């Protein structure tokens, strides 16, 4: 526990900042269709928010917010959303990932727009889960008992 981690100012600022960063991340994901941004960038920013939290409040506290099991499930979920979208297109008679084959709305371009958003969300979920898990795995364990064996 370093001096920075004990500083009240930093702890408070981080606690206030994290929701805003996450909100911004969601904005970036959803705004990918009409401006710079997208699932990947948004996912990284969302992951960075939780990483920031874990850096200041400690890995254990971070893992309370984002457990390993949840992490694994989220990583799989994101990819499942993406692949399921692709397979749904096949079921609707199109090619793999042919969004405009899905007869959801009369205007195929609009269907495509919404499915692109869905896909971006899927990417975002996978990316945020993996980024957090990368940080948790690579950062130094806090106690001896967590030390990697081998």
């Amino acid at each position, binding site marked *: 526990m370093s001096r920075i981690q004990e500083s009240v100012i930093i702890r408070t600022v981080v606690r206030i900042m994290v929701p805003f960063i996450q909100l911004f991340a969601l904005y970036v994901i959803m705004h990918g269709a009409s401006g710079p941004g997208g699932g990947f960038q948004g996912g990284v920013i969302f992951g960075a928010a939780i990483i920031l939290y874990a850096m200041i409040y400690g890995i254990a506290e971070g893992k309370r917010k984002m457990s390993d099991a949840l992490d*694994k499930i989220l990583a*799989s979920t994101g990819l*499942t959303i993406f692949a399921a979208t692709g*397979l749904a297109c096949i079921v609707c008679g199109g*090619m793999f*990932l042919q969004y405009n084959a899905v007869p959801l709305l009369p205007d195929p371009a609009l269907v495509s727009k919404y499915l692109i958003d869905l896909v971006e969300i899927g990417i975002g979920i996978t990316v945020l889960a993996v980024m957090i898990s990368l940080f948790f795995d690579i950062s130094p364990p806090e106690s001896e008992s967590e030390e990697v064996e081998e």
Partner: protein
Amino acid sequence: MTGFELIATHLPVLAVVVPLIAGFLTPIVGWIDRRLPWYWVMLAMFVVLLIAGSNLATVINSGTIHYKLGGWDPPFGIEYVIDLLNGFVCLIIAFIGLMVSIYSLESVKKEVPGKTTQFYSVFLLLITGLMGMTITGDIFNFYVFLEISSLTAYALIAMGDRGDGVVASFNYLIMGTVAASFILLGIGYLYAVTGTLNMADMQSILPSIYENRVVLAALAFFMVGFSIKVGLFPLHAWLPDAYTHAPSTASALIAGLMTKVGVYAMIRFMFGVFTPAFVIDVNMTEILTWAAALAIIVGSVLAIAQSDIKRMLAYSSISQIGYILLGVGLVNVIGMQGGLLHILNHSLMKCALFLVAGAIFYRTGIRNLYQFKGLGKKMPVTTTVFLVAALSMIGVPGTVGFTSKWYLALGSIEADQWIFVAVILVSSLLNIVYFWRIFDNIWFGHPHEIEQIKRDEAPLTMLIPMVILAILCVFFGFFSCYPIEYIFEPLAKALLGLGGAP
């Protein structure tokens, strides 16, 4: 449209998507029950094998399959193209993958304890990467899947012998990153002068700008990149350590498949992106044949000097890759057939040999081949498989190795390169030398090392895939005419642009 027809249209993409989905669902499957992932992987690999077989059958019966991903027309979207070449490589990937996955049950439990779920997830992603690299008709998509297969290979190799495995994996990572960066640079160069990423489209645009130096540089970058990936002789530094120290399942998979897919990519880029005329014109094939000949000799000689069986097999892999590239570099139909047949031969026998090495290690904990004395009585089936696969590598008549070496020799004669015939003969003799040491130890050695000799055969899940592979080595030795007639001959002609649709 019935459900069956619906699936039949989408088989090309399903060959990649099935292992991908299975791969990222493995953590969830393993979370339900620790023992399930093995069945899950087998199921996925079996489905992939069916898909790959059906794809190849379609190609043989009705020609090349084109699949437009996302429904976009080729130069705009990504296209999947399955012709004889990648249909056949896909079948090999799926088949070897299934065999190794059956084998993996006991071996993974012992060598990667407590991490089986992640191991199987990465295993399936490796298959995904290799499949994707093979089927794609888009050079950037190729790069993405190349990276999937590389990352998984790094992880699998690092799971091997404690420190050595990690260091080997790191060295491979550095070389692999250089290779991938070179390939990315080559793709960028080609894109800069053609404005397309589709292989077929690129092949039609390139001939008009062959005098452009950028094209030549791109070819050079691709060749260097792939040479690192396949471990061609001067750039093989990562290969022996990686093969030696990986867990036996991973060694078999990587030795049996990764380099083969690298060779496939080399062939595809030389003849499917550039044209044979250009590649011959800039002497790339000649350089390739000489490098391959050097690799054959040096690999065989270095293999003799090894005492670790996996390291010996790794060096012999270097020389076998040389055979394949020699056949490809000769650019005549017979030599090309020999090279392509050798891809089949090498995947079957090298996979079998690594599986045998793994099985011996599993039962006895020995990898030093001077301690194998008396093993023939202890593990008769395993050692017989070893004998068959080794004979196939030497090229004894009646095994598939004989046919491929025969074609390679004929091809060399047709190209008026008698020196390569000599190289093939010398290398076969060297093969006999290094395998003879092991035969001698296994059957004729006095059993000092393995204390109480009683039959202690490898578990059934390990034996079945090894035996199947050995049987196939012999089967294709006698019936190699069928694959040659249906696959390799039209394929070789098509690759060299001698008529016949690809």
